[in-house]
Protein backbone atom coordinates (compact mmCIF):
# COMPACT_ATOMS: atom_id res chain seq x y z
CA UNK A 1 0.00 0.00 0.00
CA UNK A 2 1.35 3.39 -0.91
CA UNK A 3 1.13 6.09 1.74
CA UNK A 4 1.13 9.05 -0.65
CA UNK A 5 -0.96 10.00 -3.66
CA UNK A 6 -0.25 12.00 -6.80
CA UNK A 7 -0.19 15.80 -6.30
CA UNK A 8 0.91 15.45 -2.64
CA UNK A 9 3.50 18.08 -1.70
CA UNK A 10 6.61 16.46 -0.24
CA UNK A 11 10.02 17.21 1.15
CA UNK A 12 12.91 14.89 0.42
CA UNK A 13 14.60 13.85 3.65
CA UNK A 14 17.88 15.64 4.22
CA UNK A 15 19.71 12.60 5.41
CA UNK A 16 23.31 11.58 5.30
CA UNK A 17 23.88 8.03 4.20
CA UNK A 18 26.62 5.52 4.64
CA UNK A 19 26.77 3.15 1.71
CA UNK A 20 24.48 3.05 -1.28
CA UNK A 21 21.21 4.88 -1.84
CA UNK A 22 19.65 6.14 -5.05
CA UNK A 23 18.86 9.66 -3.81
CA UNK A 24 21.22 12.20 -5.35
CA UNK A 25 22.36 14.89 -2.93
CA UNK A 26 20.96 17.68 -5.12
CA UNK A 27 17.38 16.78 -4.15
CA UNK A 28 17.95 16.12 -0.44
CA UNK A 29 16.00 18.65 1.58
CA UNK A 30 14.18 19.92 -1.53
CA UNK A 31 10.43 20.44 -1.83
CA UNK A 32 8.54 18.89 -4.70
CA UNK A 33 5.28 17.22 -5.68
CA UNK A 34 4.40 13.58 -6.28
CA UNK A 35 3.93 13.21 -10.05
CA UNK A 36 2.82 9.58 -9.98
CA UNK A 37 2.87 6.51 -7.78
CA UNK A 38 4.87 3.59 -9.17
CA UNK A 39 5.00 0.15 -7.54
CA UNK A 40 6.99 -1.45 -4.74
CA UNK A 41 10.65 -2.27 -5.24
CA UNK A 42 13.42 -3.65 -3.04
CA UNK A 43 15.06 -0.52 -1.61
CA UNK A 44 18.64 0.14 -2.84
CA UNK A 45 19.98 0.39 0.74
CA UNK A 46 19.15 -3.33 1.16
CA UNK A 47 19.71 -4.39 -2.45
CA UNK A 48 23.25 -3.00 -2.44
CA UNK A 49 24.16 -5.20 0.51
CA UNK A 50 22.82 -8.39 -1.05
CA UNK A 51 19.64 -8.59 1.03
CA UNK A 52 17.08 -9.83 -1.49
CA UNK A 53 14.53 -10.25 1.31
CA UNK A 54 15.03 -6.68 2.49
CA UNK A 55 12.45 -3.92 2.65
CA UNK A 56 10.18 -3.37 -0.34
CA UNK A 57 8.73 0.11 -0.49
CA UNK A 58 6.69 2.12 -2.95
CA UNK A 59 8.64 4.14 -5.48
CA UNK A 60 7.31 7.54 -6.56
CA UNK A 61 8.11 9.99 -9.29
CA UNK A 62 8.57 13.44 -7.82
CA UNK A 63 8.70 16.67 -9.79
CA UNK A 64 10.51 19.83 -8.83
CA UNK A 65 10.37 23.27 -10.39
CA UNK A 66 13.90 23.85 -11.69
CA UNK A 67 13.78 27.25 -9.98
CA UNK A 68 13.09 25.61 -6.60
CA UNK A 69 16.14 23.37 -6.97
CA UNK A 70 18.46 26.03 -8.35
CA UNK A 71 17.82 29.58 -7.10
CA UNK A 72 20.01 30.96 -9.89
CA UNK A 73 18.16 28.95 -12.57
CA UNK A 74 17.81 30.73 -15.86
CA UNK A 75 15.15 29.28 -18.13
CA UNK A 76 11.38 29.00 -18.14
CA UNK A 77 9.47 29.13 -14.83
CA UNK A 78 7.76 25.92 -15.95
CA UNK A 79 10.98 23.92 -16.46
CA UNK A 80 11.03 20.81 -14.28
CA UNK A 81 13.26 18.07 -12.96
CA UNK A 82 11.60 14.71 -12.35
CA UNK A 83 13.17 11.91 -10.37
CA UNK A 84 12.28 8.63 -8.62
CA UNK A 85 12.24 8.55 -4.81
CA UNK A 86 11.38 5.67 -2.43
CA UNK A 87 8.77 6.18 0.25
CA UNK A 88 11.14 6.25 3.24
CA UNK A 89 12.77 9.40 1.81
CA UNK A 90 9.50 11.33 1.40
CA UNK A 91 7.98 13.57 4.06
CA UNK A 92 4.48 14.84 3.24
CA UNK A 93 4.15 18.57 3.79
CA UNK A 94 1.22 20.95 3.91
CA UNK A 95 1.51 23.14 0.90
CA UNK A 96 -0.82 24.52 -1.66
CA UNK A 97 -0.48 22.32 -4.70
CA UNK A 98 -0.11 24.20 -7.92
CA UNK A 99 -2.62 23.00 -10.49
Amino acid at each position, binding site marked *: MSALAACQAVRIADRRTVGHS*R*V*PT*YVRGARGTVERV*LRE*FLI*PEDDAFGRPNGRRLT*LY*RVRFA*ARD*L*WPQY*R*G*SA*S*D*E*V*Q*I*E*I*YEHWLEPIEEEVKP
Partner: protein
Amino acid sequence: MSESHGHGAHAPIDARETPGEWEILEIAVRELAIAKGLITADDHRRLLEGIDGASPALGARVVARAWTDETYKKRLLADGSVAFELGIDNYDRTNLIVLENTPEVHNFVVCTLCSCYPRPILGLPPDWYKSPSYRSRAVRWPRVVLAEFGTVLPEDVSVRIHDSNADMRYLVMPMRPAGTDGWSEDQLAKLVTRDTMIGVTVPRVPLAPG
Protein backbone atom coordinates in the same frame (compact mmCIF):
# COMPACT_ATOMS: atom_id res chain seq x y z
CA MET B 1 52.61 1.47 -40.41
CA SER B 2 51.03 -0.80 -42.99
CA GLU B 3 48.15 0.55 -45.04
CA SER B 4 48.15 -2.43 -47.36
CA HIS B 5 44.74 -3.76 -46.24
CA GLY B 6 42.90 -0.69 -47.33
CA HIS B 7 42.22 1.56 -44.36
CA GLY B 8 44.05 4.38 -42.66
CA ALA B 9 47.07 4.08 -40.42
CA HIS B 10 46.36 3.22 -36.83
CA ALA B 11 48.15 1.81 -33.81
CA PRO B 12 48.36 -1.97 -33.90
CA ILE B 13 45.32 -3.72 -32.41
CA ASP B 14 46.72 -5.13 -29.23
CA ALA B 15 44.51 -7.11 -26.90
CA ARG B 16 47.39 -8.12 -24.66
CA GLU B 17 46.78 -5.56 -21.92
CA THR B 18 46.86 -6.98 -18.41
CA PRO B 19 43.27 -7.37 -17.19
CA GLY B 20 42.28 -5.08 -14.32
CA GLU B 21 41.17 -6.21 -10.90
CA TRP B 22 37.43 -6.07 -11.71
CA GLU B 23 37.89 -7.94 -14.96
CA ILE B 24 39.73 -10.72 -13.16
CA LEU B 25 36.97 -10.85 -10.54
CA GLU B 26 34.31 -11.10 -13.28
CA ILE B 27 36.15 -13.93 -15.01
CA ALA B 28 36.63 -15.79 -11.72
CA VAL B 29 32.94 -15.50 -10.70
CA ARG B 30 31.74 -16.46 -14.19
CA GLU B 31 34.02 -19.49 -14.41
CA LEU B 32 32.95 -20.60 -10.93
CA ALA B 33 29.26 -20.21 -11.82
CA ILE B 34 29.81 -22.31 -14.94
CA ALA B 35 31.87 -24.93 -13.06
CA LYS B 36 29.14 -25.25 -10.41
CA GLY B 37 26.47 -25.67 -13.07
CA LEU B 38 24.56 -22.48 -12.14
CA ILE B 39 24.80 -21.18 -15.73
CA THR B 40 26.32 -22.57 -18.89
CA ALA B 41 28.94 -20.91 -21.05
CA ASP B 42 26.27 -20.73 -23.76
CA ASP B 43 23.85 -18.88 -21.41
CA HIS B 44 26.54 -16.28 -20.83
CA ARG B 45 27.42 -15.98 -24.51
CA ARG B 46 23.74 -15.66 -25.46
CA LEU B 47 23.21 -12.86 -22.91
CA LEU B 48 26.18 -10.90 -24.29
CA GLU B 49 24.96 -11.46 -27.84
CA GLY B 50 21.56 -10.07 -26.85
CA ILE B 51 23.09 -7.03 -25.12
CA ASP B 52 25.29 -6.25 -28.11
CA GLY B 53 22.46 -6.94 -30.57
CA ALA B 54 19.99 -4.38 -29.17
CA SER B 55 20.13 -1.09 -31.06
CA PRO B 56 18.20 2.18 -31.40
CA ALA B 57 16.46 0.68 -34.45
CA LEU B 58 14.21 -1.18 -31.97
CA GLY B 59 13.08 2.00 -30.25
CA ALA B 60 12.60 3.65 -33.63
CA ARG B 61 10.09 0.96 -34.62
CA VAL B 62 8.13 1.58 -31.41
CA VAL B 63 8.02 5.34 -32.02
CA ALA B 64 7.06 4.94 -35.69
CA ARG B 65 4.24 2.56 -34.72
CA ALA B 66 2.97 5.07 -32.15
CA TRP B 67 3.06 7.87 -34.76
CA THR B 68 0.83 5.87 -37.08
CA ASP B 69 -1.49 4.11 -34.61
CA GLU B 70 -3.30 6.29 -32.10
CA THR B 71 -4.64 3.34 -30.08
CA TYR B 72 -1.16 1.84 -29.76
CA LYS B 73 0.24 5.22 -28.74
CA LYS B 74 -2.33 5.63 -25.95
CA ARG B 75 -1.54 2.15 -24.59
CA LEU B 76 2.20 2.78 -24.82
CA LEU B 77 2.01 6.07 -22.92
CA ALA B 78 -0.16 4.47 -20.23
CA ASP B 79 2.17 1.44 -19.88
CA GLY B 80 5.69 1.41 -21.31
CA SER B 81 5.85 -2.40 -21.29
CA VAL B 82 3.65 -2.26 -24.41
CA ALA B 83 6.88 -1.38 -26.28
CA PHE B 84 8.09 -4.95 -25.88
CA GLU B 85 5.08 -6.36 -27.74
CA LEU B 86 6.93 -5.77 -31.03
CA GLY B 87 9.12 -8.82 -30.48
CA ILE B 88 11.79 -6.91 -28.53
CA ASP B 89 13.60 -9.06 -25.96
CA ASN B 90 13.33 -7.35 -22.56
CA TYR B 91 16.38 -9.27 -21.37
CA ASP B 92 16.90 -7.35 -18.12
CA ARG B 93 13.21 -6.79 -17.26
CA THR B 94 13.42 -3.07 -17.84
CA ASN B 95 10.49 -1.10 -16.40
CA LEU B 96 9.82 1.43 -19.15
CA ILE B 97 8.08 4.80 -19.10
CA VAL B 98 7.49 6.51 -22.46
CA LEU B 99 7.57 10.31 -22.40
CA GLU B 100 5.70 12.16 -25.13
CA ASN B 101 7.17 15.35 -26.50
CA THR B 102 4.53 17.92 -27.48
CA PRO B 103 4.57 21.52 -28.74
CA GLU B 104 4.41 22.54 -25.05
CA VAL B 105 6.78 20.11 -23.35
CA HIS B 106 10.22 18.81 -24.32
CA ASN B 107 11.47 15.80 -22.34
CA PHE B 108 15.01 14.53 -22.10
CA VAL B 109 16.79 11.94 -20.01
CA VAL B 110 19.93 11.70 -17.88
CA CYS B 111 21.18 9.36 -15.18
CA THR B 112 23.03 11.60 -12.73
CA LEU B 113 24.20 8.66 -10.60
CA CYS B 114 25.62 6.34 -13.26
CA SER B 115 24.42 5.30 -16.72
CA CYS B 116 20.87 3.89 -16.37
CA TYR B 117 19.46 3.55 -19.87
CA PRO B 118 16.70 1.50 -21.58
CA ARG B 119 19.25 -0.96 -23.00
CA PRO B 120 16.91 -3.66 -24.39
CA ILE B 121 15.25 -1.03 -26.57
CA LEU B 122 18.14 1.38 -27.39
CA GLY B 123 21.27 -0.77 -27.00
CA LEU B 124 24.23 0.44 -24.97
CA PRO B 125 24.40 4.13 -24.01
CA PRO B 126 26.73 6.48 -25.91
CA ASP B 127 29.95 7.55 -24.17
CA TRP B 128 28.74 11.14 -23.68
CA TYR B 129 25.68 9.87 -21.78
CA LYS B 130 28.06 8.35 -19.21
CA SER B 131 30.35 11.39 -18.97
CA PRO B 132 30.46 13.32 -15.66
CA SER B 133 29.97 16.52 -17.68
CA TYR B 134 26.60 15.48 -19.16
CA ARG B 135 25.43 13.81 -15.96
CA SER B 136 26.14 16.76 -13.69
CA ARG B 137 25.11 19.56 -16.05
CA ALA B 138 21.90 18.17 -17.60
CA VAL B 139 19.86 18.68 -14.41
CA ARG B 140 21.49 22.03 -13.57
CA TRP B 141 21.59 23.73 -16.99
CA PRO B 142 19.24 21.69 -19.18
CA ARG B 143 18.75 24.40 -21.81
CA VAL B 144 22.48 25.03 -22.11
CA VAL B 145 23.17 21.32 -22.53
CA LEU B 146 20.40 20.99 -25.14
CA ALA B 147 21.85 23.97 -27.04
CA GLU B 148 25.23 22.23 -27.09
CA PHE B 149 23.48 19.40 -28.95
CA GLY B 150 22.06 21.97 -31.38
CA THR B 151 18.62 21.98 -29.80
CA VAL B 152 17.52 25.52 -28.94
CA LEU B 153 14.03 25.67 -27.47
CA PRO B 154 11.85 28.76 -27.16
CA GLU B 155 11.01 30.00 -23.64
CA ASP B 156 7.38 28.96 -23.98
CA VAL B 157 8.33 25.30 -24.35
CA SER B 158 8.79 23.71 -20.92
CA VAL B 159 11.87 21.59 -20.51
CA ARG B 160 11.37 18.47 -18.42
CA ILE B 161 14.57 16.70 -17.47
CA HIS B 162 14.14 13.15 -16.19
CA ASP B 163 16.79 11.81 -13.84
CA SER B 164 16.74 8.05 -14.45
CA ASN B 165 18.11 7.38 -10.97
CA ALA B 166 16.33 4.26 -9.72
CA ASP B 167 14.16 1.42 -11.07
CA MET B 168 12.43 2.95 -14.09
CA ARG B 169 13.92 3.57 -17.53
CA TYR B 170 12.78 6.22 -19.99
CA LEU B 171 12.18 6.45 -23.72
CA VAL B 172 11.35 9.81 -25.26
CA MET B 173 8.73 9.75 -27.99
CA PRO B 174 9.70 12.71 -30.16
CA MET B 175 7.15 14.70 -32.16
CA ARG B 176 6.44 13.47 -35.67
CA PRO B 177 7.96 16.03 -38.04
CA ALA B 178 5.77 18.00 -40.44
CA GLY B 179 5.85 16.92 -44.06
CA THR B 180 5.63 13.20 -43.33
CA ASP B 181 1.95 12.62 -44.12
CA GLY B 182 1.39 9.28 -45.76
CA TRP B 183 4.86 7.95 -44.90
CA SER B 184 5.10 4.27 -44.03
CA GLU B 185 6.21 3.05 -40.60
CA ASP B 186 9.57 1.99 -42.10
CA GLN B 187 10.15 5.43 -43.64
CA LEU B 188 9.22 7.15 -40.38
CA ALA B 189 11.44 4.85 -38.29
CA LYS B 190 14.50 6.04 -40.23
CA LEU B 191 13.93 9.58 -38.86
CA VAL B 192 13.95 8.36 -35.25
CA THR B 193 17.58 8.26 -34.14
CA ARG B 194 19.08 7.31 -30.78
CA ASP B 195 19.54 10.92 -29.70
CA THR B 196 15.92 11.84 -30.48
CA MET B 197 14.83 9.07 -28.08
CA ILE B 198 17.16 10.33 -25.33
CA GLY B 199 15.61 13.70 -26.12
CA VAL B 200 18.72 15.79 -26.80
CA THR B 201 17.60 16.47 -30.37
CA VAL B 202 14.49 16.20 -32.55
CA PRO B 203 13.82 14.22 -35.76
CA ARG B 204 14.22 16.09 -39.00
CA VAL B 205 13.08 15.35 -42.53
CA PRO B 206 16.13 15.42 -44.84
CA LEU B 207 15.95 18.17 -47.46
CA ALA B 208 14.90 16.87 -50.87
CA PRO B 209 17.85 16.94 -53.31
CA GLY B 210 17.82 19.86 -55.73
